[in-house]
């Protein structure tokens, strides 16, 4: 990534390098605005991962997420977007400009586009971090093969958890499905679906209390009226994704109860000059919807910055 000077003023600073952020950058930089994009993890975001994207228009044979995102990145670079590999820790409105704080420094911006995406929830129970990679896993399709002929628990109540339970049931010896005391979000239909898998046992009315073992996971402890401990070789924690917006809430940006950033028709948040796009606004969770959001946010940021500059020059 490029290394611009910390503290430098940009017309637009974009937080997040997934499809929404990259598209916003293409629009603002192409119109001559100095644009910095900050990404702390993987340029391309969640879209980098899929083995094949079949529904992105213009690719009739499909395209890998990596190839599509490499094209987005190359296009953004061509128009002059600067990239910085940093973690954003704060955002504040200073009236005329915004201050973006990172672990490594700070950047000033006339407008900010938030495209921070979503992240997987964690349980935050004893043993989860200690045994991460030693029996605690978060991706059934990635890590399931390590548990062939073993016993695993799957913790989670949403659609993703149910999908992963059925995937694991085809690989492992036994699956304990633990949706939590509130049950599966899909209701009794899910129980009926899982009933068809002879090696899946649904533990209803139980919350996971802790994960234990020695070198690797050996057991889990439950909050349950009769069951206490289950012997398992692995625990797959498959919770729903949530918007990456904790830092934004602290900055005063309004979100709904699910953490989704609230925006108007121009992708503008409750803070003037701060726009949001992509998965963090909980739109369609698709590359196509993220790019649409990103384009609208980029154009709105363009209008905002031009108006700001006109105001200053008069």
């Amino acid at each position, binding site marked *: 990534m490029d290394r611009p000077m910390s503290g430098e003023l940009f017309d637009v600073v974009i937080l997040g390098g997934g499809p929404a952020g990259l598209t916003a950058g293409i629009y603002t930089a192409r119109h001559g605005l100095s644009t910095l994009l900050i990404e702390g993890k993987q340029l391309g975001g969640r879209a980098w991962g899929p083995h094949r994207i079949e529904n992105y228009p213009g690719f009739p044979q499909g395209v890998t997420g990596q190839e599509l995102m490499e094209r987005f990145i190359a296009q953004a670079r061509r128009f002059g977007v600067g990239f910085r590999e940093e973690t954003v820790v704060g955002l504040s409105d200073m009236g005329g400009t915004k201050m973006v704080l990172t672990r490594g420094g700070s950047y000033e911006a006339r407008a900010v586009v938030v495209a921070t995406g979503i992240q997987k929830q964690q349980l935050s129970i004893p043993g989860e971090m200690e045994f991460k990679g030693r029996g605690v896993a*978060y991706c059934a399709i*990635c890590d399931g093969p390590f548990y062939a002929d073993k016993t695993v628990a799957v913790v989670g109540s949403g659609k993703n958890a149910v999908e992963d339970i059925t995937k694991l049931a085809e690989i492992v010896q036994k699956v304990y499905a633990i949706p939590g005391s509130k049950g599966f979000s899909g209701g009794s239909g899910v129980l009926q679906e899982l009933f068809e898998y002879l090696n899946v046992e649904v533990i209803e009315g139980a919350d996971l209390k802790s994960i234990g073992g020695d070198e690797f996971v050996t057991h889990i402890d439950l909050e349950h009226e009769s069951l206490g401990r289950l012997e398992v070789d692995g625990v797959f924690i498959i919770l729903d994704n949530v918007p990456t917006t904790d830092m934004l809430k602290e900055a005063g940006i309004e979100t709904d109860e699910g953490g989704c950033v609230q925006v108007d028709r121009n992708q503008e948040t409750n803070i003037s000059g701060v726009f949001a796009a992509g998965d963090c606004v909980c739109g369609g969770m698709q590359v196509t919807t993220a790019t649409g959001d990103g384009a609208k946010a980029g154009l709105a940021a363009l209008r905002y910055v031009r108006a700001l500059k006109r105001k200053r020059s008069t």
Partner: protein
Amino acid sequence: MWRLVMVKIDVYFSPVCPHCPGAKRLVAEVSSEYGGRVEVEEINTYTREGIERGMANGVMAVPTVFVDAVKKFVGFPFSREALAAAVDDALARSP
């Protein structure tokens, strides 16, 4: 005969893992800064050989990164600085 490589990095990955490309990219970038003193091997755990080798070495998730046969990172992201420090440490111990 000279043997330039002094540190070996093994990256266990899966082609269906969303975090693996980032880990592989970072390992490639950091290792390229050591002028041929670091060798990188990528092991695909979606092959029989890869999964067996991974399980024999205590791998239970991808991506997992070993530096000179010591498990250093599980999952991604991990920092460029932490990886470089692990390589520097291994080089310092290299005969």
